[in-house]
């Protein structure tokens, strides 16, 4: 486990030693922004990453997450702001001088070099002596379970093996941080799960700081300590992963990260300091102490918090099944409801064995939301 510190002295020409300087962040982004002409790709991002943290940068395409990563890597010069790695300002350094490791979606392994030579590449560029290179490569191959494949060419490897080579190559020279750009983007679901576990193990064993860019919230959820949610070039949210999932700060975060239904509601009362809202003529207790009475708000309810045939008529809505997807252990329903002044569609996720589960599209159902699971979320549509 201590191999990260076993870095040969002659290799430390670029940048400070790998041991984290006390009191400094692994990564610090200060007002980092990028514009292409009048277009703003990234607008003033501030972020401090602790040593050994895995930060998922999550966002839809065009949200600026890739541009952000490119700036940290050095492929794009920032228009504004600074990038600090281990306290050193690297904003104007070349990618080669930043001492970072990177794993990209197609792994970008050198097709003309063997696995071992791929892993060795960064060490050769750092002019490590031959013997130490060989030792380090052997060690990395062993730790990434690639020892038997050292002489193979990349195209002779499976996708999972290629990813392990890419990680070994990126970590061989003990970079200050590791950047991962959608490393699982092009894979099928079963393989994805294996590789997620692999990345999790690498993060644990190598104790590397990782910035992990993805558009897949499940990847972000499984891997990350903290999630940075990007939207329109801005940081829409930044919070520990469970916090963000269970208590999304904004409607966008609730929809994109928690997959919650966003239901228009109106605050009608306060019970023990928390808001009671009205949805489709029924009232519902929420977990949030907000808003003046009577104001229109958005309530976020995750699909698992929708129940069928609620015992209490006071919060039961009448709806119709408009779509039904069988997902194995669970069934996803789309329920359309309408009322005098509101109408909408909510998505709900029920166990496949739930009693009274509607069997077909078109069936009428009574449904409601589990009390105290709804959250009032501020509408952030206008941040555009």
């Amino acid at each position, binding site marked *: 486990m201590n191999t990260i510190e076993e870095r040969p002295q002659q290799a430390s020409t670029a940048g400070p030693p790998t041991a984290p300087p006390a009191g400094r962040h692994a990564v610090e982004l200060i007002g980092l922004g990028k514009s292409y002409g009048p277009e703003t790709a990234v607008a003033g991002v501030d972020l401090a990453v602790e040593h050994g943290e895995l930060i998922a940068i999550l966002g839809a395409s065009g949200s600026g997450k890739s541009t952000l990563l490119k700036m940290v890597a050095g492929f794009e010069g920032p228009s504004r702001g600074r990038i600090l790695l281990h306290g050193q300002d690297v904003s104007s350094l070349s990618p080669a001088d930043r001492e970072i490791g990177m794993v990209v979606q197609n792994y970008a392994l050198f097709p003309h070099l063997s696995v071992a030579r791929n892993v060795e590449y960064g060490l050769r*560029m750092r002019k490590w002596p031959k013997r130490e290179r060989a030792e380090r490569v052997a060690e990395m191959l062993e730790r990434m379970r690639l020892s038997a494949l050292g002489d193979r060419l990349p195209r002779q490897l499976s996708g999972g093996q290629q990813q392990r080579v890419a990680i070994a190559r*990126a970590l061989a*020279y003990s970079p200050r941080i590791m950047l991962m750009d959608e490393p699982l983007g092009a894979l099928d679901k079963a393989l994805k799960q294996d590789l997620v576990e692999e990345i999790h193990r690498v993060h644990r064993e190598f104790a590397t700081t990782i910035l992990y860019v993805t558009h897949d919230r499940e990847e972000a959820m499984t891997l990350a300590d903290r999630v940075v949610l990007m939207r329109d070039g801005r940081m829409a949210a930044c919070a520990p992963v469970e916090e963000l999932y269970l208590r999304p700060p904004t409607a966008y975060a609730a929809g994109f990260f928690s997959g919650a239904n966003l239901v228009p509601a109106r605050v009608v009362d306060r019970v023990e300091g928390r808001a009671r809202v009205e949805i489709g003529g029924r009232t519902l207790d929420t977990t949030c102490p907000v808003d003046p009475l009577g104001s229109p708000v958005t309530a976020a309810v995750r699909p698992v918090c929708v129940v069928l045939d609620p015992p209490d008529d006071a919060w039961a809505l009448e709806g119709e099944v408009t779509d039904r997807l069988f997902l194995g252990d669970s069934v996803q329903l789309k329920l359309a409801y309408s009322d005098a002044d509101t109408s909408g569609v909510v998505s709900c996720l029920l166990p496949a064995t739930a009693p009274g589960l509607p069997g077909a599209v078109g069936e009428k159902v009574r449904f409601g939301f589990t009390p105290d699971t709804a959250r009032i979320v501020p509408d952030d549509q206008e941040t555009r």
Partner: protein
Amino acid sequence: MATVETVRPAKGRVRARPWRPEAGPVTGLLLAAPMLVAIVLFVAFPLVQVFVDASSGGVPVQRYTDVFTNPVSRRALATTLTDSALVAVVTVALGAVIAWTLHTTARRWVRVLLWTTALVPFWMGMIIKNYAIYLLLAANGPLNALLMGLGVVDSPLSLLYTKFAVVYGISYSLLPYAVLALYSVFVQVDRSLLSSAAVLGAGRAQVLATVVAPLVRGGVLVALALIFLLSIGFYVTPIMLGGLQTPFMATVINQQVFSLYDFPGAAASAAILLVIAFVVVATILALAGGKTLRRML
């Protein structure tokens, strides 16, 4: 409930003839026939006829040795080969810069400009191209005017009728071929390899040397062969820009045919040029390796 549209029967005739996704051998042969006839008539037959003509009457072997012993044709052969080798190197070097920039630049206008530059020689007639270069290089032409204006030279350089003029002219004509051939090779170099190498610590020159060069080596060799082959057949440019003092083989063959009426001799000269071309191609393809070929085909 969702309504299901009733399926209406399709209008028109209903065909019951069996159909297979791949065309049968007769159809294939019929489709290929015009091309096969053209190849036999215009490629295979003349190729054989060249060697037949060279051997007709007299002492066959002597015709071939004549090409090397006759000072005129020997000099022409040497000029053709050395100039074409120069052309190949110059054109591939220029073409590589253009093709690589086309592959890597993010700027649209650079791409448009370079494609235009690279392809313009394609759109001009051979005579027009050479005449333009002739005017450019003339003693009172713009290039000499520029050199004298800058004070580099005192009197006009004689640029025309030199090796330089010939290599310049042929290179200009062949640049599009080099760019297209090299571009097709370069686009196969994944740009993420370049950024990965950079992150791994390689400077720009190191990226070129350790990643790009090994990946494009075969393609560059093939481009060199292509340009060399096209160049040794040039006729107009060596005459217009090289004059009659430094003729190419094509000029000599032309004289043999139209001035000396020495058809067997012309055939022998052509055959030797052909054999040299074949040897050069075979050597370069062997160097490039079968892998490169399979990737290009």
